[in-house]
């Protein structure tokens, strides 16, 4: 059966945020679509341009607002153990990452305006050569996790 999946899930509010991102990008598609439609009407292009733009918009809303965020959220797992951090994510390509605690160089939390509104934060874990992120954790949990990781992470000089 192999290694067990990491146990912890990211915040459920991530779903709301990702859907919001989906709506925002859909709004841009709407703008572009409106542009195409206007041009099509002015220059008498084929009606298929308008249909295409509309279809793209609908498809994008279905995918990026309803389908993908849920799948993405379901797949996202992480677990911070005493000596290692394990992550798993990805919809079409599942990625499982293992980072030993001694490899961790530093941990950051960051939040943009949208994440802040929903009291969420992204954790970035840097090793000497790689960067790993856990998106959208509850801010308190993220702060606590950041502190505990940076306490657990000790960099041995020999090991860089």
């Amino acid at each position, binding site marked *: 059966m192999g290694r067990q999946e990491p146990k912890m899930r990211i915040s459920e509010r991530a779903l709301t945020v990702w859907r919001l991102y989906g709506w925002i990008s859909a709004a841009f598609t709407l703008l572009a679509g409106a542009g195409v439609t206007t041009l099509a009407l002015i220059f008498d292009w084929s009606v298929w341009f308008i249909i295409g733009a509309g279809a793209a918009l609908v498809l994008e809303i279905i995918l990026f607002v309803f389908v993908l965020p849920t799948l993405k959220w379901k797949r996202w797992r992480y677990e911070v153990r005493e000596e290692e951090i394990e992550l798993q994510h990805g919809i079409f390509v599942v990625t499982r990452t293992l980072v030993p605690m001694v490899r961790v160089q530093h941990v950051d939390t960051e939040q943009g305006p949208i994440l802040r509104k929903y009291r969420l934060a992204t954790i970035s874990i840097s090793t*000497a050569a790689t960067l790993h992120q856990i998106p959208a954790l509850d801010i308190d949990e993220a702060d606590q996790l950041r502190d505990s990781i940076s306490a657990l992470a000790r960099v041995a000089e*020999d090991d860089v």
Partner: protein
Amino acid sequence: MSEEKRLHPITTVINALKTLREAFIPIVILVFLNRGEAESILDYLPFFIMGAMIILFLFIGVIKWWRFKYWIEEGELRIEQGLFVKKKRYIPFERIQSLNYTEGVLHRPLKLVKIKVETAGSSASTDSEAELTAITKQEADELNRIISSAKKKLKEEQSELVEGEEFVEQEPEEHILYKMSPKDLIVMATTSGGAGVVIGGVLIFLSQFGEVIPFEAVFAELVDFVEAGFLLAGIVAVLVFFFAWLIAVGLTFLRYAHFTVKLVDKDIVITRGLLEKKQTTVPLKRIQGITFDQNLIREPFGYTSVTIESAGGSVLEKDSNAIRLLPMIREKETYAILDQILPDYHWKTEFTGVPKRALKRYIFWKMLFSLVIIGPVSYFFFPLGLASLILIPFAIILGWWQYKTAGWSASRDQMTLKFRGISKQIVYMKKKRVQSLEWTQTIFQRKGDVATIHATIKSYTSGSHSSIAHVAKEDADLMMDWYSPEAEVKKVHEPTPVPEIDTP
């Protein structure tokens, strides 16, 4: 050596030449813009601009040299430079890994060296390093001695030596590990594909001068030529290849002549070069991993090239981000040399291959890719384009070959990955050097119960990534367990010994 110092004045010329080299293409364009008949003074304008530019470069070179000062103070190498914005860079000795020497054509008659300060550079900023463009060899050696003795003293203080044990400074022991013979160099130039590159370069060069060379006349002659017999054409082709090969050999000699690997104390020192002598120092403890690389021509002859991945250091080194330790050597000769440098590595490991169900995955994608090319080519160039069908057997052979090559092994403290793009690569990594381990699994891979494993080690400021596609999923999990510190702890506490992951 604590007083402020300037670099050797030749620096001004070197700086100017460097700037000029960067401006080479604009200058060439300027010259060619002016190819027509000169009718008025305006037609000479580009040359005036050029002349002014060259003077300006020289002037900037002088200013730069004038403003550049370096000195040693409080266990730091301090550098001050800049015209409008004064830049000060203080590098503590313990952050300095090594000083790398380069002797260019301009340096050698004056007994000067260029020094590149290699720092541990954990951050990705290019600002973390420094270069002293031209100082005398004595000064360089003096600097080197001060830094290394300061570092030793520091270490001594940290380790708190037992009383009575005196710190004795000794001349570091030099031990030559490997020297490249001229014969090796010729074999290397021949098998590196460099000749091909030279031919390509000549063709590109010729195409640039399309207007200058009367191609039509040349073609007309060429037709006569072909009529005169294929033999002659054949001879010319052979000659072209021969000259390309000669140039490749020449270039290889320029860069790699006198290639010597020495072990000095705990550093590997690599020296090479004919006109420009280069010396690279790699501290042993900075070595992150070792890669064996065998290209298609070298593989059947048992030749390989060995490179080191090293952490930190300067981004200025443009050659590649890995250091060539043994550019060209018979594989069986490598182990004796490597054992002297890195005795804790196991060079001969048994590899676990990828499962049989991986074979079709290796072949499938290459087939698909070749079909993407073949389709349009066959369609648009109908009868001739069908020749592209030849890609299919190649795709199959390459896929099968990659499948055959792919393999991994994980012993107690070392992971070895073997894989092939077109060249075969074997990467040796110590567990404690692996920064993160990862597997990925696409939807198709999940069906076949296989996964792709990725290991990242640090290489200079970024990471070096090695991966094997389509290993059995349970093997991927085994590797994760091997890598996981938690699983290690569990293993220790378990009463019954867990079977060694080392290959069956």
